[in-house]
């Protein structure tokens, strides 16, 4: 049985004016468990807290009820006071008789009666409270960044700069990601490589950063502060430690038929290759599906010419096991495959290209050396038509329902760059809406229209038809209420951004949730935009939703700050008001696991002694470091095995009883 002290606060006249304090004090004296009941003008004051501490000593209180303002206001204050007096802070409950009583009820008798009910409800709860202690767990001072694009690099650099170890895992042979493929960046039109490659070098040279390229995360276990991760380094077939990156092997390689992924398949590469000149690491990789040696067993030319003897056809995948305190997801994006959009003829007409392909064509290091040429015949185009929203804002299931956010700006950029370099080329853009929120963004778009003479047509393209070696683009001009048919030499499609295919698998590994579009879900859309619902897992860049480079970098740094904040702690204290399964009642049905938003519930086979007999049962275990205490699991538990400390079934039912009495 508890020894409960009730302290009724006047809050000056805030409570006392509407509630008869003495009635409440007297009423509480006859409540079960109450051994002391008193009042004071300002309980939250130094003197009020002193009164509480004295009462604890004098009456040997084990539980405390404060009838005062909202717990959101002073719960922490009174818990600390209780702690100072030697009572467990979680033995304190607040009856909210100010915000939810004295401030809203005019009738004194009515307000007093309600204050009594609210107070006795708190007493009923405290009677069932148990002392709780926050759990602690250690923090491994190393972070893992998954994805080596601009998002991952920025997060890694920021974490490393703060003095913590970071590993980057990148599945491609080089870091750099999508940004490395871009030509210029809006709205300043500076060259992407010029601003990205220094960051790549910084990361490669940073003493706190390790980079695992051509590697993938294979298994994750553990929880915030202590994740165990298994990384598979795929065999490059080239010994990275001795390769000097001279490039001889690539020159000599006779297999030349592989599509160059970096150049969006616009040209071919060798079977042994470095994706691009500034790749990091500057170590080639053998594409085993293309390599003649791997296909037929004959050749091996690269090995023969290599001055460092670095080519190793026998190389095996390597497995790296490491522990991390935090994980940053920066898995980036892809552009939507346009197979469902027959009307644009993308698959059939080489001169219908995507914007990312145009980036490579425009890029000085690209397949055309930076000259705008038609892929079909290598001739300069006279007219270029851009089509916006291809696969975005599409609710039919072929594309994506969301706006890809970046297309309006990069299309304006492309249009402007073409008009600048080739003023004789006509450029038209079909758009539904032009969306340019961002610093200097709208000005940029208007410049394309006003200074560069890009023709913006409000309407959509219905069909692209090949005609006499050119492309006839049939569209509508809604402002004019007309159908337009433009002859074009190049049609550029702004295909939708979609989450990288690896996102879904990683979400499962990390129990980070994803939305229906496979973008990672943030812990809170407004207040926790860089945290995933799984503690210790953070989100960086487009993997959370479409965004441009400045936004990506901003989020990457924000995620890094969160990681640094976590790694700076030696121990993590966890909220003790969390779920716990009664192992004797648990039936192992997995329902709690299904609803836990944090993946805090796992199942173990445990030997239990039941009726004097040992039995192995499958039972739920809540990871105290991960559980946030929402209670979703408690309600799906049919046997009532799962309960929430601090808000237990019996506590809430006692509250209901007291409230309805």
């Amino acid at each position, binding site marked *: 049985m508890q020894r409960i002290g009730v302290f009724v606060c006047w809050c000056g006249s805030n409570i006392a004016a509407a509630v008869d304090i003495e009635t409440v004090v007297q009423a509480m004296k006859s409540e079960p468990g109450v051994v002391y009941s008193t009042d004071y003008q300002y309980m939250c004051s130094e003197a009020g807290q002193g009164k509480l501490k004295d009462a604890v000593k004098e009456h040997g209180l084990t539980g405390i009820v404060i009838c005062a303002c909202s717990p959101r206001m002073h719960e922490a204050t009174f818990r600390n006071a209780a702690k100072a007096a030697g009572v467990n802070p979680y033995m304190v409950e607040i009856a909210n008789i100010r915000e939810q009583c004295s401030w809203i009820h005019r009738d004194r008798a009515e307000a007093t009666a309600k204050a009594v009910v609210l107070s006795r409800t708190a007493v009923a709860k405290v009677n069932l409270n148990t002392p709780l202690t926050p759990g602690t767990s250690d923090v491994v001072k190393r972070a893992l960044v998954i994805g080596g694009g601009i998002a991952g690099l920025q997060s890694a650099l920021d974490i490393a700069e703060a003095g913590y170890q970071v590993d980057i895992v990148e599945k491609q042979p080089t870091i750099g990601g999508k940004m490395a493929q871009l030509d210029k960046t809006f709205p300043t039109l500076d060259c992407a490589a010029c601003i990205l490659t220094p960051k790549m070098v910084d990361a490669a040279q940073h003493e706190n950063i390790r980079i695992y390229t051509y590697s993938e995360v294979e298994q994750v276990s553990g929880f915030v502060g202590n994740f165990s991760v298994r990384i598979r380094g795929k065999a490059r077939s080239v010994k990275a430690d001795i390769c000097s990156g001279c490039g001889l092997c690539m020159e000599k390689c006779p297999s030349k038929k592989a599509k160059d992924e970096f150049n969006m398949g616009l040209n071919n590469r060798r079977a042994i290759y470095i994706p691009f000149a500034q790749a990091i690491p500057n170590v080639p990789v053998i594409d085993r599906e293309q390599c003649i040696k791997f296909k037929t067993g004959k050749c091996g030319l690269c090995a023969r010419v290599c001055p460092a003897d670095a080519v190793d056809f026998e190389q095996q995948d390597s497995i790296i096991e490491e522990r991390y305190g935090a994980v940053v997801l920066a898995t980036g994006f892809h552009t939507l495959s346009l197979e469902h959009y027959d*009307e644009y003829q993308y698959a059939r007409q080489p001169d219908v290209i995507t914007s990312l392909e145009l980036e490579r064509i425009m890029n000085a290091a690209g397949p055309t050396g930076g000259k705008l040429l038609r892929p079909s015949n290598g001739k300069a185009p006279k007219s270029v038509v851009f089509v916006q*929203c291809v696969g975005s*804002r*599409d*609710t*039919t299931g*072929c*594309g994506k329902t969301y706006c890809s956010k970046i297309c309006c700006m990069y299309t304006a950029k492309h249009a402007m760059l073409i008009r600048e370099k080739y003023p004789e080329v006509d450029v038209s853009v079909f758009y*539904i*809406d032009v969306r340019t929120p961002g610093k200097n963004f709208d000005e940029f778009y208007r410049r394309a229209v006003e200074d560069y003479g890009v023709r913006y047509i*409000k*309407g*959509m*393209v*219905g*069909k692209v038809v090949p005609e006499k070696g050119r492309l006839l683009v*049939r*569209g*509508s*001009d*809604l402002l004019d*209420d007309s*159908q337009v048919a433009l002859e074009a030499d190049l049609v550029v499609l702004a295909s939708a951004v979609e989450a990288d295919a690896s996102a879904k698998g990683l979400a499962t590994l990390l129990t980070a949730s994803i939305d229906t579009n496979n973008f990672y879900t943030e812990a809170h859309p407004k207040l926790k935009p860089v945290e995933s619902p799984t503690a210790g897992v953070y989100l960086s860049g487009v993997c959370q939703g479409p965004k441009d480079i400045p936004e990506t970098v901003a989020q990457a740094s924000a995620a890094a700050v969160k990681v640094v904040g976590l790694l700076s702690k030696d121990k993590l204290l966890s909220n003790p008001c969390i779920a716990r399964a009664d192992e004797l009642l648990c039936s192992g049905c997995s329902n709690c696991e299904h609803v836990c938003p944090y993946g805090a519930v796992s199942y173990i086979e445990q030997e239990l002694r039941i009726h004097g007999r040992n039995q192995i049962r499958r039972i739920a275990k809540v990871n105290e470091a991960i559980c946030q205490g929402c209670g979703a699991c408690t309600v799906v538990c049919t046997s009532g095995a799962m309960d929430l400390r601090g808000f237990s079934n019996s506590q809430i039912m006692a509250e209901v009883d007291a409230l309805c009495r």
Partner: protein
Amino acid sequence: MHQNNNYLVETAAQISGVNPKSCMKCGKCTASCPAFDDMDLSPHMFVSMVEAGRIRELMESTSLWKCLSCFACVERCPRGVEPSTLMEAVRLMVIRKQGGHRISADEIPELLDKRIPQQALTSAFRKYSR
């Protein structure tokens, strides 16, 4: 019978099952329409007028009868609005209002004209007779 406007809007929605509010005014329907040149109201305007409740005007328009029901707009619409279905609904409303047969099998030979697509005639027969 006098039909008030709300009734017309509801009927159009009921027959077609189309929600014109999902239109994002991209104009892809109009861009795709092979009968555009003959129409005074283009498909996107059609949707927009249904949304605005201007059904009576649509019922009186001649464009209504120019639609070939080729469903290019239905196929291409990224929002699943189905302008052609909507037109069909308004056509039905006109027909139901006027009642009776508008075409019979006997009349078809007379109407046969090389310039009329056969598909149009068949669908007209299907639609305008009972």
